[in-house]
């Protein structure tokens, strides 16, 4: 099981802030994760429609979309940040 967490409009569109999910064996990178999640329902498809906009963090660190996700405890998906 992998813990997924979502923030801001990604969270709102998916309809939940976190979930534990069993990922198929061929979902090995951040990009593959986005593609897979988009098949899970309209909310996911809407949230992740523009994949290049989505930021990915693994275990609290920013990663690129081609980063392997094997062994990740927690993967976060969120929009560009607007703090400060």
């Amino acid at each position, binding site marked *: 099981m992998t813990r997924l*967490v979502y*923030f*801001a*409009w990604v969270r709102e569109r998916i309809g939940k802030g976190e979930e534990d999910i069993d990922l198929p064996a061929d979902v090995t990178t951040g990009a593959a994760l986005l593609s897979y999640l988009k098949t899970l329902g309209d909310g996911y498809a809407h949230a992740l429609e523009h994949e290049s906009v989505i930021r990915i*963090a693994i275990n*609290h*660190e*920013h990663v690129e979309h081609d980063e392997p996700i094997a062994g990740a405890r927690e993967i*976060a998906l*969120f*929009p*560009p*940040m*607007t*703090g*400060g």
Partner: protein
Amino acid sequence: MAGAAPAPVIVRVQRDDFDAAAETARLVAGRAAAGAIVSFTGLCRDEGGRLSALELEHYPGMAEAEIERICRTAVTRFSLLGIAAIHRIGRIAPGENIVLVIAAAPHRRAAFDGASFVMDYLKTAAPFWKKEHFADGSEGGWVAAKDSDDTALAKWS
């Protein structure tokens, strides 16, 4: 400098307001080498009367970790004597504080640069998001990231 205490790095994410003067005094207490303090406070604008509040969301754990990474990079790069970064979350009304960054250094240039560097990276890399609430009672959208915030990083590379 043998015997010098390591530069303090103070990072907090909190709902409550902060006191910039008190945080500054705490950061430089006992650090007589500090000849310069630059303090930046970011506030919530009313956007011409349109806005009633901003709602600040964060990624607990990563937000603190990312700000600390940015602060430690700044300490090394600008040889700071201390840095503090405090970011508020929750509902914040126009005129209220959102973020505080204080950089202490022997001379002014490093203190200015350290505070500016931390703010530039905090805005683009620390996981916080702002949602607008309008004065007419309606819920606005999520604030969009600005390209100008990304281009601001170019001067540090």
